[in-house]
């Protein structure tokens, strides 16, 4: 395959994982702008293990993901006490703390960054995307998935019927951190070189943007958002210097014309019924 297309597909896969990580938290009504922090932890921990300690890629990747998940749990316990805009600010601060930590942490290269990682293939990224899409699909049709919708819609009513709202949010945050950690580890071993700037605030914001634009009602929205909004800037390359301005204008137009995002749950249900022939109307 052409190197350019392979690169676009690889970053699409990593973006899908990042969008799913943001979606996991948004699905319980918590907007995180710090997922790049979890991504950085996955990237640096796994890279340190493969480059400095000579680990195999897979155990290193698992260790990076676990480190991100554990950090998610430790950060989540205090941060989940915050609501609304304060939670957003708390996660934003967390992301910046992690970024500046790695900028100054000499054992992982500090400001020089890290190099020497390799081993991620496009097939590997695709396999991870497939695994997580299946996991989200299973979760969404499970009873726990239904409870997550209740938590997102109205947490006070959810508590009144015995749903453990804090537990659901903590689980969402930890799994979101885990997925971001995997995305980071895959990214590091694909890009071959990482520096703390790769994990800045814009990466977190983009992950949330994919979900909002794709649609927040189902995880398929996150997937679709990541696919389209990875391809769109590439498709706009003919505009040269105006590319990102046009991209921004398209995003604004989309939010005005379709605030619920591209994909809605009712649309999926209608599609499903039409296919199974129960209700074509």
């Amino acid at each position, binding site marked *: 395959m052409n190197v350019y297309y392979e690169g676009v597909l690889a970053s699409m896969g990593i973006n899908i994982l990042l969008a799913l990580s943001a979606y996991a938290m948004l699905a319980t009504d918590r907007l995180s702008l710090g997922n790049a922090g979890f991504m950085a932890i996955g990237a640096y921990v796994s890279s340190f293990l493969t480059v400095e300690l000579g680990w195999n890629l897979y155990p290193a990747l698992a260790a990076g993901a676990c480190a991100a998940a554990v950090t998610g749990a430790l950060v989540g316990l205090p941060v989940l006490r915050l609501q609304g805009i304060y939670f957003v600010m708390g996660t934003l601060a967390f992301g910046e703390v992690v970024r500046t930590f790695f900028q100054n942490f000499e054992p992982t290269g500090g400001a020089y960054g890290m190099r020497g990682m390799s081993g991620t293939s496009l097939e590997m990224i695709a396999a991870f995307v497939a695994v997580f899409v299946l996991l989200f699909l*299973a979760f969404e049709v499970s009873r726990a998935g239904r*409870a997550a919708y209740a938590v997102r*819609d109205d947490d006070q009513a959810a508590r009144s019927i015995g749903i453990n709202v804090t537990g659901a949010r903590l689980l969402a945050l930890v799994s979101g951190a885990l997925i971001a950690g995997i995305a980071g580890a895959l990214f590091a071993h694909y890009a071959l070189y990482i520096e703390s700037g790769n994990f800045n605030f814009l990466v977190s914001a983009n992950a949330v943007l994919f979900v909002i634009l794709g649609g927040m009602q189902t995880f398929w929205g996150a997937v679709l958002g990541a696919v389209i909004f990875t391809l769109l800037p590439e498709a706009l390359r003919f505009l040269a210097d105006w590319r990102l301005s046009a991209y921004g204008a398209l995003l604004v137009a989309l939010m005005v014309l379709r605030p619920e995002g591209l994909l809605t749950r009712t649309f999926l249900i209608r599609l499903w019924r039409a296919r199974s022939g129960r209700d074509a109307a």
Partner: protein
Amino acid sequence: MSVILEARGVDKRFGGVAAVERLSFCVDAGELVGLIGPNGAGKTTVFNLVTGVHRPTAGEILHRGTRISGCDPTAIARRGIARTFQNIRLFPSLTVLEHILVAQACRATVRATQFWPFRTAGERERRRQALAVLDGVGLSARRDEAATHLPYGAQRRLEIARALATGPELLLLDEPAAGLNDTETADLRRLLDALRAQGYTILLVEHDMKLVMQVCSRILVLNFGRLIASGPPAQVRSDPGVIDAYLGVAH
């Protein structure tokens, strides 16, 4: 008779405002107790205290002799205390049937199985039970509709059905007749009678005095956060303190 719910000297202050003061009352098993009082008397605050949304500033609340004040709302719901809300709080993403299914999990003893994605025999059984609950409130025909698209009266009934699906022994209903027309209020009255016949204990906040006088076995009257009267409907209706609270005292 066994006491289901007891409040002992409960105070609730919001800053300098005393919403509830030295409130003590008991609810026995099988009773339908009305909680009435003028606007701002503290009725909804009492519900929020019992269900753990608020924590009492002083005093304690007991469920079957165990202190529940200080527990979180989830734990209290799982003990068998369910409620509805004054301003309806349904889940916009869920259908009518899904509201019942999601509330049923309250009774689950094993929580890990909730992540299982496949339709099991247990799930079919739960669906059957959920439809029976919907039948009880006359909503089984609309099971697949989005809950927030239902007419107002049906939304109120769905909230009661959702509370019932948690398998409670004590139901707290916060103004279930608010905004209902005469036919819907008559339906509600039949539902309340049926629930009582099934053995549910009910605490009812309501402004529709005709309904309260008809269905309640006992009435508690709150005014400015204090209990000013308590007793059977006929006694409360003729209580001078209650008449003053509702009509104002002539000066």
